[in-house]
């Protein structure tokens, strides 16, 4: 890397502090999850009642939980859990929602109306209520939590994709594509999608953060990942009656959630500022 490139990079970083801070926080979050795949300080389910609720020590950097399990280990695997939930749930929304939104914008007419009204109906259901019903029907578990969160990402991406795609369709060159005999699909693929990709990326970052919060809330209500697999929300739930005895049980998992969400939100804002300051994204609940 040349000195000029480094200088340019620094200059860009200075213009987008959100991006830099967000990238660093998110990097730590992702790194913790990746490291947990190959190494954790202890086994996440190693119960040792005699060593429960200990403070930080050389053996347990962040201390132990109510069953004597290593908290750092559980936080690291909890990060992995959050990333899996976030990636899959946002993936579902991004794929299905974008296809629907693009199709609605390309076809217009009844399809457009159907997608818009369908999104309205799904939006009308408070996400947490539907998630409670879904997990009551199919039982608690990571997959059901992912599906419940994923469903609510579909209309988000459908709306964003539809709105952004309609703007592109309003431009001369998209219409020109149709005029020279290209199919709606081809125009969407060649012109619309590349133009709205940045909006979708920014929205995906924000939804990732929303998904992590949603998973934590579900797990807190006892509806997420099954024990003994660690989930940040579940750790908070377990801590509630114990926090008077040992506050760190409630403080650490919540701090981890806030850290990850903050990182992703900053990253999303930074990306938006860098890619196009006028981008419109939705931020919900």
């Amino acid at each position, binding site marked *: 890397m040349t000195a000029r490139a480094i200088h340019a990079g620094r200059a860009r970083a200075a213009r987008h502090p959100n991006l830099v801070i967000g990238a660093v926080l998110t990097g730590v979050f992702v790194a913790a999850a990746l490291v947990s795949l190959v190494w954790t300080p202890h086994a996440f389910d190693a*119960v040792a009642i005699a060593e429960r609720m200990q403070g930080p020590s050389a053996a347990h950097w962040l201390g132990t939980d109510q*069953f004597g399990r290593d908290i750092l280990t559980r936080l690291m695997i909890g990060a992995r859990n959050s990333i899996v939930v976030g990636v899959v749930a946002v993936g579902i929304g991004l794929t299905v929602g974008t296809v629907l939104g693009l199709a609605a914008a390309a076809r217009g007419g009844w399809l457009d109306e159907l997608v818009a009204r369908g999104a309205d109906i799904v939006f009308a259901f408070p996400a947490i209520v539907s998630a409670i019903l879904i997990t009551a029907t199919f*039982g608690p578990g990571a997959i059901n939590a992912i599906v419940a969160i994923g469903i609510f990402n579909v209309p988000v991406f459908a709306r964003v994709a539809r709105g952004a795609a309609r703007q592109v369709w309003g431009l001369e060159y998209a219409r020109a594509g149709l005029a020279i005999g290209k199919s709606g699909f081809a125009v969407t693929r060649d012109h619309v999608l590349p133009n709205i990709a940045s909006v979708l990326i920014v929205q995906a970052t924000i939804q990732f953060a929303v998904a992590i919060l949603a998973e934590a809330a579900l797990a807190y209500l*006892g509806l997420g990942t099954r024990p*003994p697999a660690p989930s940040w929300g579940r750790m908070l739930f377990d801590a509630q009656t114990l926090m008077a005895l040992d506050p760190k049980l409630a403080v650490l998992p919540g701090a981890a959630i806030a850290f990850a969400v903050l990182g992703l939100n900053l990253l999303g804002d930074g990306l938006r500022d860098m890619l196009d300051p006028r981008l419109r994204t939705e931020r919900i609940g």
Partner: protein
Amino acid sequence: MNKLLSGAALAAAMVSSMLLGTAAYAQSKDTLTLGMTLEPPHLDPTAGAAAAIDEVVYANLFEGLTRIDENGVVRPQLAESWTVSGDGLSYSFNLKRGVTFHDGSAFDASDVVFSFDRARAADSVNAQKQLFAAIDKVEAVDPHTVRIILSRPEGGLLFNLGWGDAVIVAPETAHANKSQPVGTGPFAFVRWVKGDRVELKARDAAQPIQTVTFRFVPDPSAQIAALKAGDLDAVSNLNAPEAVIAFQADANFEVAVGSTEGETIIAMNNARPPFDDIRVRRAIAHAIDRKAIIDGAMFGFGTPIGTHFAPHNPAYVELTGTYPHDPDKARALLAEAGQSNLKLTLKLPPPTYARRGGEIIAAQLKAVGIEAEITPVEWAQWLEQVFRGTDYDLTIVSHTEPFDIGIYARDKYYFNYDSSTLKAVMARLNETGDPDARRALVGQVQKIITDDSVNVYLFQLAKLGVWRKGLEGMWRNSPVQANDVTGVRWK
């Protein structure tokens, strides 16, 4: 100097106000605010299984012919006395006179006939209808005498009639008891602020407690804070054992660690492989470390049990040493049974003992090579899938009915245990009246189920009562689910 002075003055003021406060307190305190974890769904004990109903109304608001006292002994209540025929098929009850319902109407034999016929009717929704299964006929001999004719001898009838599900209600008001309960008890219903509290008022000015408020505080940490702030005078059973520790060191509070009828067990589906092999059931029993579970899930509160029987009962047989914690033995038994890499499900209902205990048990099973997948379930699902559908491998539950060892002789009970030896002993027990012979037979039943390792017997749930110093007459033990405040007073 100035600061010091004012500090001293403040301290003096505080001391004097505390002294004055206590003096005034002792004379005027005739109210009681009792914290409960769960809110009752309604207040009719004859139409639901929820323990919280009885915890408000039992003995306070509703009365039965008999009642069960703090030590689990049957006592007269609306029936002053009774006689039993020689063949044990006819019971004659002499009713208390001058008793009225809260609406002013008089209580007599016709109310008893109505209440029991209602509970036994074809459209009855009584959760414990089987309590009345042996009753053939209930008749009013005269306004103050009731005769109950049985179709078969039922040694437990007097005990059964002491359950909350067998209380006496009035025909005019029975339909509205869910929201406007009318009974014969010393306390009458005042109001129910849904989601917060039920208030009862004493009918007799001589009652030491004139107003009782049952407050529903679902969260244990909130219960603790409310006790310390004086918003609650007592919590009869804190469901967070970790919270008790804070009160044991506090001179303002009394902590009563008492007994319940709750045998907490790991139930195994005996009919489903691999549990149809006794070696597997015994291996699991050897894999479990009771002490770690009691310490880890219950913070040390709970008495280890080795069989399905309450340790405070004189007929209890100490069998906790039958399957000592021995992972090597467990692995050897599993190998002998030809089992390796066992994968099982462990379904956990909502109570803390199950959810916390389950995580520890899963870890203990893992140590002997059994992978137990934890599945938390709601009560609705537990009742439907595990209890009625017997679709499970392992589950953790506390059996809170008193003297319920008879469930092992039932056909198709959820752990699917079927032993003709045990059924024969149980049949003899039901026909036996002599206390010593009964005790020997009950001991035999306990040994059979432990020897067969039907379930893993963990511990007897403790009742963890906390109340303000000076409160007397609170139940320490919980032979039935009740918060009987009729004998409670402030010192």
